[in-house]
C-alpha cells in the first residue's frame, strides 16, 4: 500500500518564510546555553562537541566558517524548542516522535559528521543535550543508542 504524501500545511510554510516577518529581539534573554555531548559504547564519560570559530583578517567581509558554526548551534536550539513543543502536548517523550523531528535529523547528521571528522569509528552512539546555566547543568534530552550515519 503506497504511503500517503504529506499534506501541505500553511503553518509550516509560514515558519519557513518567517524571515519575511521581522522581529527585533536580539540578545535579550540570558537563557540556558545548550551543548551537545556524545558517548560511544564502552565509554565512561560523555564528550562535548565544541563549536568554535577562528578569526581571519577579512572576516568582516567573508566569514563562512563562523556563520556555518552559528547555523549549527541554531540546530541545537531549534531541537530544544521542538522537544519542548512535544512535551507541551505530552510530557513523556516518545523517542519515535523525537526522531521524526527535522531538527533531530539535522542534529544527528551533524553528530555523525563530527564523529567521522574526529575519526571515531564507533557504529553506535548516544547523545544528549545539556542546558548550561551559571552554576548548573541539566540534561534536557538523552537519545537512545543510535546507529551512526554513513556520511
Amino acid at each position, binding site marked *: 500500500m503506497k504511503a500517503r*504524501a*504529506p*499534506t*501541505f*500545511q500553511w503553518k*509550516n*510554510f509560514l*515558519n*519557513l*518564510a*518567517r*524571515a*519575511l*516577518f*521581522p*522581529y*527585533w*529581539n*536580539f*540578545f*535579550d*534573554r*540570558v537563557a540556558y*546555553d545548550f551543548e551537545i555531548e556524545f558517548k560511544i559504547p564502552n565509554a565512561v564519560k560523555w564528550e562535548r562537541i565544541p*563549536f*568554535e*570559530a577562528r*578569526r581571519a583578517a577579512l*572576516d*568582516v*567581509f*567573508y*566569514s*563562512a566558517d*563562523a*556563520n*556555518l*558554526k*552559528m*547555523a*549549527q*548551534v*541554531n*540546530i541545537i536550539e*531549534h531541537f530544544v524548542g521542538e522537544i519542548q513543543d512535544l512535551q507541551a502536548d505530552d510530557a513523556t517523550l516518545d523517542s519515535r516522535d523525537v526522531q*521524526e523531528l*527535522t531538527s533531530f*535529523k*539535522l542534529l544527528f*547528521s*551533524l553528530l*555523525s*559528521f563530527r564523529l567521522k571528522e574526529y575519526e571515531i569509528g564507533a557504529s553506535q552512539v548516544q547523545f544528549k543535550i545539556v542546558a548550561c546555566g*551559571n552554576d548548573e547543568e541539566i540534561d534536557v534530552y538523552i537519545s537512545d543508542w543510535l546507529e551512526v550515519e554513513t*556520511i
Partner: protein
Amino acid sequence: MNLENTILLMTRLVGITMLLQGFEIFSLTRRREFFAVWSDRNLKTEFAKSLPFADLLMACFLSQNAFRGVALFQILAAFSCLCFPSPLIIVLLFCTQLIICVRFRGTFNGGSDMMLFVVLTGLFFATFFKNPDIQKWGPIYVAIHLGYSYFKAGLAKIIRREWRTGAALPAFLERSLFPDMRRLGAWLRDQKTLSFILCWLVLIFELGAVTLPFQGSWTFSYFATALAFHLAVFFAFGLNRFFWAWLCAWPTIFYCSYLLN
C-alpha cells in the same frame, strides 16, 4: 541626503552585501559538512508539508547543484545590482535570499536576513515607481524598521534584570564562538562596575534610536556610534552579516533626516 543619492547608495550597498553573502553561501555548498547536515534526506519530509511543490520540483529544489546554482545566481545578480540596478534585479535578489533562508528552515543568520528583506522591499518600491512622491516611501519604510529595530532590541533588553544589573554582557560573551571572547566574558563577570556601564551604554544607544527623527545634525554621531556598535558585535560574536545588512539600511535614516529638517 536626497532621494536619488539614497537609492543609489542603497543599491550599491545591497549589491556589495549580497555579493559577499553569495560567496559565503557558495563556499559552504562546496563543503561536505554542509550537505551532510542540510541534506535533501533530512529536509524533504518537512519541506513536503511546507512548500506547495510537486515531487519533481521539490527534488530539484533540494538538489545540491540547484542550491549551488542559486548561490551563483545571487552573486551574478548582486554584481548586476552594483553596475545597473533595476527593480527586476532587486526582485531576483529577494528570491535568491528567500530560497537560501528556506533551505536553512527559515533563516540562515536570523535578524540580518530579516533586515535584508526589509531593505530589498523598500528598494524595490523606490526603484519600481518613478514618481518621487511615491518612491520616497520605500526608504521611509526601511528607516522606520531600522529605527524600530534598535529601539525594540533595547526595550526587550531593559525589561530583563540581567541587562539592568550588568550581568548580561559577560553571559553572552561567554557563549561566543571565539575562545578569546569567552575569556573576556569570564573576566568581565568579575568587573561588575565595568559590565554595568557597558550594558547601560548598549541600552542607551538602542533606546536612543527613538530620538533619531529629531536628531538633525546629531544623526551622523548616532550613525558613527551604530557603526562602532555593529563592528563590536561582529568582533565579539562573528556577526558580520548584521554589520552589512544594517549598513544597507542606514542611508534611509539620513534621507529621513533630510526630509524632516
